[in-house]
């Protein structure tokens, strides 16, 4: 040790920078990647795995791939010649179907407008500055209604009505996923509060409902939605299939989220309830202002996990004949032109879901950090 330690009078020691070598990237690598022999081996193994996977994938997906110019898999192969890359042409050719399903081509602009409105709605819900303005908040309620009319059509606004069986692809995923997410959250809060309610009617009803839904696979519920419900409904009534699916998906995720929220509620100390009561807050006030903000905050990772699950579960609607992007893609690769392109399809679909789910996951982390108030 060459550092000379100067003596300072008691209480007069100045603030000094940390000794060199105790901070910075080199130090970080030494601490985190090469701190021991086994750690070094793992680091090198990791680098080797990245080396054997990433460059070939990039070669396949980007460098050797074909996007435009091919009308079929054969033409793809002809263009590529020796280098076998990905044939993205079927995505390019069928882009319209992937996005809109069988929505009439001349009406697709309505879906585009609805996408933009939905993006605004999400921004309002997620960005606190926008949410604080009452007028903008009202927009968040009106915009989804506008989306609904735009997509389904309404003679009131001179929009041709489009039956729901024409909706597919990303449009379908977003309809089911987003309305499922936005509707299931309030329902799940009510279910969680009912379940812990002192009034037996509420708690028994909520418990039976939650346990029933959680005890049955989603596919079964979707089949119930597509077949069994017709027996209960009066004959001749035409209860839209997509709407039934929406209801089932929403209830399914509501039951799961309700349990997550119940866990959050259980973590709130009784002192919080007592302090709220002692101040004279009513039940709903204390729930809304004191208990739920804290319980929901604890539950964020679980709730977002359920949302991600719900979003991915939307692919199950294929089984009852609705065509989400996966359904559209599977239909595409079973045609003679594109037969044999399954890898490309699943990579594409995987990427689509990954982008949405990863964003949700990041937002949840951001929210947790923002809401942390140091306790």
């Amino acid at each position, binding site marked *: 040790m060459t550092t000379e330690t100067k003596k300072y009078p008691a209480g007069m020691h100045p603030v000094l920078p940390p000794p060199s070598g105790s901070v910075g990237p080199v130090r970080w690598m030494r601490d985190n990647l090469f701190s021991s022999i086994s750690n070094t081996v793992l680091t090198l193994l990791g680098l080797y795995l990245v080396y054997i996977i990433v460059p070939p994938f990039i070669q396949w997906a980007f460098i050797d791939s074909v996007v435009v110019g091919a009308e079929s898999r054969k033409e793809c192969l002809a263009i590529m010649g020796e280098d076998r890359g990905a044939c993205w042409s079927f995505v390019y050719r069928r882009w319209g179907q992937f996005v809109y399903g069988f929505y009439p081509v001349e009406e697709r602009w309505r879906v585009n407008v609805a996408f933009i409105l939905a993006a605004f709605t999400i921004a309002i819900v997620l960005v606190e500055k926008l949410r604080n303005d009452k007028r903008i908040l009202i927009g968040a309620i009106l915009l989804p209604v506008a989306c609904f009319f735009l997509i389904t059509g309404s003679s009131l606004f001179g929009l041709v009505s489009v039956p729901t069986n024409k909706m597919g692809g990303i449009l379908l995923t977003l309809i089911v996923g987003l309305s499922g997410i936005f509707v299931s959250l309030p329902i799940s809060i009510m279910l969680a509060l009912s379940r812990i309610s002192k009034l037996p009617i509420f708690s028994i009803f909520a418990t039976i409902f939650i346990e029933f839904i959680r005890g049955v696979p989603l596919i079964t519920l979707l089949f119930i939605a597509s077949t069994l419900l017709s027996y209960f409904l009066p004959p001749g009534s035409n209860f839209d299939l997509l709407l039934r699916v929406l209801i089932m998906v929403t209830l399914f995720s509501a039951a799961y989220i309700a349990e997550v929220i119940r866990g959050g509620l259980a973590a709130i100390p009784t002192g919080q309830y007592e302090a709220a009561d002692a*101040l004279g807050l009513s039940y709903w006030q204390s729930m809304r202002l004191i208990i739920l903000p804290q319980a929901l905050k604890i539950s964020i990772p679980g709730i977002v996990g359920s949302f991600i699950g719900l979003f991915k579960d939307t692919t199950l609607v294929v089984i009852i004949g609705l065509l989400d992007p996966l359904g559209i893609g599977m239909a595409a690769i079973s045609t003679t032109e594109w037969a044999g392109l399954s890898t490309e399809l699943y990579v594409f679909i995987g990427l689509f879901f990954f982008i949405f789910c990863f964003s949700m996951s990041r937002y949840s982390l951001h929210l947790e950090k923002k809401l942390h108030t140091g306790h």
Partner: protein
Amino acid sequence: MANNNDKPAIIIAGMHKWYGDFHVLRDINIEVKKGERIVVCGPSGSGKSTMIRCINRLEEHQQGTIIVDGIELTNDIKKIDEVRREVGMCFQHFNLFPHLTILENCTLAPIWVRGIPKKEAEEIAMHFLEKVKIPDQAMKYPGQLSGGQQQRVAIARSLCMKPRTILFDEPTSALDPEMIKEVLDVMVELAEEGMTMIVVTHEMGFARKVADRVIFMDAGQIVEENTPAEFFDNPQNERTQLFLSQILH
């Protein structure tokens, strides 16, 4: 209003409470005049907390009557809320709302329960935060404050509702010794201003200084009730004598 003034603040008459089969409070009778300061003490588990929590209906009593500011506590939620608006409470563990700032903790109930405009509520809150000597912490969160500061915020939060009575349940027993004084000072000041107070505490110095009456509880009953001077210097009941000998060493 004038004839209201000679009505007692709190009347507890023939009150009993059970937890299941356990007879936790037996025949409690207390009358508290407006502006009176009562200190309640007694061994652990004697029912002190349970008793004062009955006064704002955090606990339900099963027999007898409790009348607060002329309002009898029954199952009527409206009456309960009316009583809670006029009776503040400070807890052993402060129970501040951790997701709200100090200022928001103080303005929440005035805004939502009393319907006071936000600006005015904030002015009131700052006034009381100054009174408890922590106006500079208004924008912080409870998790960033020391225990003594948190308890003073809790007192300010109660005061913001302009209650007629404040209940304290061992407000200093979760605090480190050096913080006890700062909280007691605030409480002494409140007492000097004529606030009706019921304080469960083992701080005998505080009791001597401000209490009009000391109530000693043991095994769910009021065993002795006297002025502080008589209570400390001339205890009648042998259980009181034993308790005092333990607590005063």
